[in-house]
């Protein structure tokens, strides 16, 4: 399977992390948090956001709160598939891959649980909220995750999966 890129959005509509792999077989060939990806990030966010609001409107209310709402899991285009994982706190994890696998839910869950929570949320020195003033909300924020532990562990985890 080939992973093209990985994105994290927060509840302020900002992209707080993106990583792209240009040569799929070499995990370190990619770019992390590059400026060129900013527009792509916004488009991706807009795509996910719109489709999500549509599915919310067309699906019926769940019977009880534990049977979860009907949410998007993946969006497929002609050349790639975007897999989505969202948390109740408003973080979206998106993985752009090829068609080899239908569902990357488990992988994204693992990234959230063992890498994101461990190195970002529970790390007291890293900010819990990447927005520092009102201007950076609503998709205009610029801060990214730069935590080396997080980046290294992410690469370590994803590189064996990239064949």
């Amino acid at each position, binding site marked *: 399977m080939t992973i093209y890129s990985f994105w994290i959005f927060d509840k302020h509509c900002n992209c707080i992390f993106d990583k792209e792999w240009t040569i799929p077989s070499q995990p370190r060939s990619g770019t992390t948090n590059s400026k060129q990806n900013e527009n792509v990030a916004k488009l991706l966010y807009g795509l996910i*956001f719109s489709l999500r609001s549509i599915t919310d409107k067309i699906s019926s209310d769940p019977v*009880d709160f534990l049977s979860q709402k009907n949410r998007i899991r993946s969006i497929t285009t002609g050349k790639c598939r975007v897999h989505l994982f969202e948390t109740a706190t408003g973080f979206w994890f998106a993985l752009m891959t090829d068609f080899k696998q239908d569902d990357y839910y488990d992988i994204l869950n693992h990234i959230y649980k063992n890498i*994101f*929570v461990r190195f970002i*949320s529970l790390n007291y020195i890293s900010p*819990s909220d990447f927005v520092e003033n009102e201007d950076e909300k609503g998709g205009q924020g610029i801060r990214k995750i730069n935590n080396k532990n997080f980046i290294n562990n992410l690469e370590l985890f994803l590189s064996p999966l990239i064949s």
Partner: protein
Amino acid sequence: MSSSAGQQQIKTLKVLGEDVWKNKVEKINSELFTLTYGTIVSQLCQDYDRDFEKINDELYKMGYNIGVRIIEDFLARTALPRCTDFNTTSEVISKVAFKVFLNLTPTIANWSQSNDAFSLIISDNPLSDFVELPIDAMKSLWYSNVYCGVLKGALEMVQLDCDVSFVSDILRGDNQTELRIKLNKVLKDEIPVIED
């Protein structure tokens, strides 16, 4: 929501809480935990010169910082989605959240008329094991005020703006330790700013 479905849901939450506590949580010695928290409060009393209002605020702030982070840990462990109503929130807090982190199940009581406020009654608070408040602290210090901050921070991250405060505390001589949680409003999710 019919009451039998409600009961079923509560049972499921209870089972979830116990299962996560037993299998997925690392445990530490409770005395170490109690003593660590005790030294924090005692040191704050020294640093702020026994100005107990300030100490209450400081504990609340500390709790808030813990809360905004611990909610992610909680969601990662339990994979629960956002609650549909405040009733469910109260059940999740009592049967899953407190269970997973402290192995406590506080009882829910004193629902308000409009169903937007409830109390949690904590029967044996691990933070206050062996603690005896000095006489000047008994009138104004809320020893476990960190709980209020944690709940406020955590609930805020799931878009619930709440006021959390202590009503009574056994350490102060009251009959029970009671925490009151009041929902102010549900915060709206942000939408991207539209650029021309």
